[in-house]
Every structure is written in structure tokens, then in C-alpha cells.
């Protein structure tokens, strides 16, 4: 991959910074007209320089595409994110939902499967919902929908019972990976339901309160652990209970 990069577009200077920590203001590359360079999240083009705007690790798994992988707690809504929200209020046909962003999000009561003006959805204020961000603009209130792009429920909607906890965004993304170590290890202990929101909120439900609390603690502790440490921790939990 490195050969492809150096012959193609990118200079040595950039390759050295891949998988290393960059800080805001660091110049990643000097860019000239005609060179293809995909500027991903956390990077900014300033005339002839590509500059990092966030602190994190510079990643480039694909040639020409670069971004900064950072971890933060504050959520900024972006399109197609799956988030967990708390219904704060109802104004006519819209719910006002708190998703942890700077503004409350709007959720139309028609954005549910099989919902129309005759068949109205009624969710209590204070309930939890799993929704999809359908409008995310830094100058406007975000908008949510509790249906997938194909207008089917597909997991979205109200979350019943269970417990919700907050974590950093990095941990939330890890939970959504296919091969998440901690979830796989926990699933071998006992059955549970989980909804991970990309806004740093995670909802868990299981047969007993004790198990739910155990899952929440295990997930929060696993954030900075290596794979073998996670497996060890889950083993310990199994033995203690």
C-alpha cells in the first residue's frame, strides 16, 4: 500500500504520520493542484496545506483517503447516525428529543412504521427512543426518524424497560463494530438486549437488574483495555456471580 501511495500522490512526510498522533494545527501534507487527496473528518484544506483540526490518530486504510480518529464525549449530529434520545416534549405533531447535541432534535409522529394521521403514535414524555438522524446541519435543529430508509421499523422506535448509560463516542463506535470483544464475551454469559447510540448513549436490558448493571460496568471498563484484558475481566465477572 505504501508503494502505491508514494508513486501515486502522497509524499513521504504524510506516510510517516499515519497511525501516529496528530494535534490541531499540525500540517499533514503540502498539497498542490491536481493531486487527488480525500480530506476526511478532522482535516481541513487551507490553500496549499492539509491541516489537522482535531487531536487524534491519523488513519489512512485506503490510499488517498485520510482522516483523524479522535475520541470525544460531546456529540455533534451527523447524517444517518443511529442515536438514543429522550423525549422531552411534544409540540403538536412533533416530539422534541434530547440526543446530547447543542440543540433538541425534532421527531415527527409520522416517522414511525405504519403511522398516519388516523393511527397516531403516542410515546410518553421521558421515554427512550432509538432513532436515525435524517437532517444534520450545524445551523439547524437536527431531525430524527424512527424508520429505516426503506420505511420499515428495523429496530428503531421506543425502548422499553432497561437501563441507559453514557460513554465517550469512541466506546460507542467500538460497540457497533462487528467483532466487538466485550459484547461477544458478555453474550456467552447470559442473554441480553443492547442498543448502542452513536451519540455516546447505550441502552441495555436483560432478565435481571444485576446482569444489566454487570453489562454496563463491563462495557464502561473495557474502553481502554486490550482484548485479553477484556476476556479476563468478563471471566472474573462470571466467577464472582
Amino acid at each position: 500500500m505504501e508503494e502505491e501511495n508514494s508513486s501515486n500522490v502522497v509524499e513521504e512526510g504524510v506516510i510517516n504520520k499515519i497511525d501516529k498522533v496528530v494535534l490541531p494545527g499540525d500540517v499533514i501534507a503540502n498539497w498542490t493542484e491536481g493531486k487527488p487527496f480525500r480530506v476526511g473528518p478532522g482535516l481541513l484544506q487551507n490553500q496549499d496545506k492539509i491541516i489537522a483540526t482535531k487531536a487524534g490518530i491519523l488513519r489512512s486504510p485506503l490510499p488517498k483517503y485520510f482522516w483523524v480518529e479522535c475520541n470525544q464525549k460531546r456529540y455533534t449530529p451527523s447524517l444517518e447516525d443511529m442515536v438514543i434520545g429522550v423525549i422531552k416534549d411534544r409540540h403538536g405533531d412533533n416530539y422534541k428529543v434530547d440526543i446530547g447535541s447543542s440543540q433538541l432534535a425534532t421527531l415527527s409522529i409520522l416517522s414511525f412504521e405504519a403511522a398516519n394521521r388516523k393511527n397516531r403514535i403516542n410515546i410518553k414524555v421521558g421515554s427512550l427512543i432509538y432513532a436515525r438522524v435524517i437532517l444534520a446541519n450545524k445551523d439547524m435543529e437536527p431531525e430524527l426518524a424512527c424508520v429505516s430508509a426503506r420505511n420499515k421499523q428495523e429496530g428503531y422506535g421506543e425502548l422499553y424497560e432497561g437501563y441507559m448509560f453514557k460513554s465517550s463516542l469512541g466506546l460507542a463506535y467500538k460497540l457497533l463494530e462487528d467483532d466487538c470483544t466485550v459484547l461477544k464475551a458478555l453474550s456467552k454469559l447470559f442473554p441480553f438486549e443492547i442498543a448502542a447510540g452513536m451519540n455516546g448513549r447505550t441502552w441495555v436490558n436483560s432478565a435481571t437488574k444485576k446482569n444489566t448493571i454487570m453489562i454496563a460496568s463491563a462495557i464502561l471498563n473495557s474502553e481502554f483495555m486490550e482484548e485479553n484484558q477484556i476476556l479476563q475481566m468478563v471471566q472474573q465477572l462470571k466467577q464472582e456471580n
Partner: protein
Amino acid sequence: MNTTINSSLTTTTIPMLARAILKPESVVSLNESKFVLEAVKENLRIDGRKLYDFRTLKISFEEEITGNVEVKLGETRVIASVKAEIVEPFPDRPTEGFFNFNVEFSPMADPNFESNRITESAIEVGRVIERGLRESRAIDSEALCIIASEKVWSVRCDIHIVDNNGNLIDCASIAVITALLHFRRESVSVNGSQLTVHPISEKESVPLSVHHVPVCVTFGFFGEGNTMVVDPILKEELILDGKMTITLNSHREICAIQKAGGTAVSQELVMQCIRIAAVKVEEISEKIQTAIKSDADKRARLRS
């Protein structure tokens, strides 16, 4: 003084209703509220503690100077710093020095803290700690007198709330009393009306006179005051129906009790809380003394 309450009055147990908290910066959903209440009924808490367990307590001291302590109670962090200067006393109290307590709620501790707005709960933290120290005579204003009517020590204790994860009163009270015990002022000598302040490099510094070690223990009540937890975490604090703080020292003397509103609590429950608080205060006092001693040993080793 024995008061008997007519316990033949039966109270109907009203089921604990879960309420969502929807304040601008503190949002707790119905699901969470219900979960916390039902877990507490099963003797479980959301961070894995038992009902009467305190969180892990960590005490650390600033190097080089004295009277600057950081206390971590779980994730709640408070820094207390003690300073002293020589001032003129009030004319009507010529032999009394001054103790001032000032609590700062940093906006980085909690999104609800705004730098210019002081809330009721903020004032409560400072007042409860001050009351526990002053009225139990743990701190002695008369011992701060140097030359009557002319010179007295004015001790100032600044309490900075750095991170709020519930139970600020207990964390801050531990920080304050540890800082007061740790602090050393310059030694002074009086020759007639001539006052000499000896810098620490010349003569060894002197501790403040602290007569006993009062520590606050806070209890949270759910429902009709029939379920109780010790050292509530932030999420529990938001859902609580009532709160009570008991300040005791390790001699089992009650220095202050604070119960501002909230759900009514029976006499038996108050007595049970006092008994639990006495046990907790003994454990905490021991941790404070151990921390101070190990810091003193460290400083002695650095000097030699």
C-alpha cells in the same frame, strides 16, 4: 431526652413512582429512573455498590506547600486549599481570629454550574461544612489570636469543585478537614508589642489547632423514605426524593444534621442513619489520618 413516637400509626406503602428528570442540562429518562428505583429495592446500585457503601476515597496532597488537598470520592473531585495571613481583629472581638470558607463551583465540573449564578445547593455545600466545623468547635478562633486588638490570623479555605459525580458535601467536607489538618502557618514570636513572623526556612511551621475531625455523611431517600442509600452518585441524586447529611466526628459526637425539605423520614430511620454514619466516619477519619501521616513521612524523607 426520650421522645416516643406513636408507632401504632400505620403508613400505607405508596409505590415508588418513576419520574423523568427533564431539566435543561440534566436529563434522566423514565427507563433510567425506574431502573434505579427498582434496583435499589433489590439492594443493588447502578455502579455495583451495596446500599451502604461509600465510593473509593483517594486523598492526595500538593507537593512543596501545605494545606492543599485533592479528594476524589469515586469520580467526584474537590480541591481544598488553606491560606493564612495576619490582619487586625474586629474591635468588638479583640481576641478572635477569622475563618473564611469559600466554595467555587467550576463550570467544568457540571454543565449546570454557571460561573455567575449561585444555586441554593451550592450555598448549602459551604454552609453545612462551615456549620459542622464552627459550631462543634473543631476550629478555634481564639487560638488564632497573636496580639489582642492588634494582630490575629485570618485563615481562608477555598473549596474548588472540579468534577461533580454526586455527593459534593461529603467530598468537600473531607477535603476541607484534611486541608485544615495538613496546613502549616509560619511561626510567630511576640516581644512586648513587637511581632516577628519567622519564615518557614528559618523556623519550623506550626499546625492550626483543630480539636476534632468532623466528617459529613450524606444519605439519599427514595419513595416514602423507606429506602435509603449512602453516598449517592449523580444519577441517584437527580432521582432522590429526599436527602440528609449528618456530620459526626470519630468520638461519635454529632456536629451537625442537615435535612432541607424532601420526603418525610421516621425517627427510627434517622437513628439508623446516625449509627451508619458513625461507622463510616470512623473509617474515613482513619483514611485521612493515614494519608496525612504518609505525606508527613514523605516530606521528612525529602528533607533529610
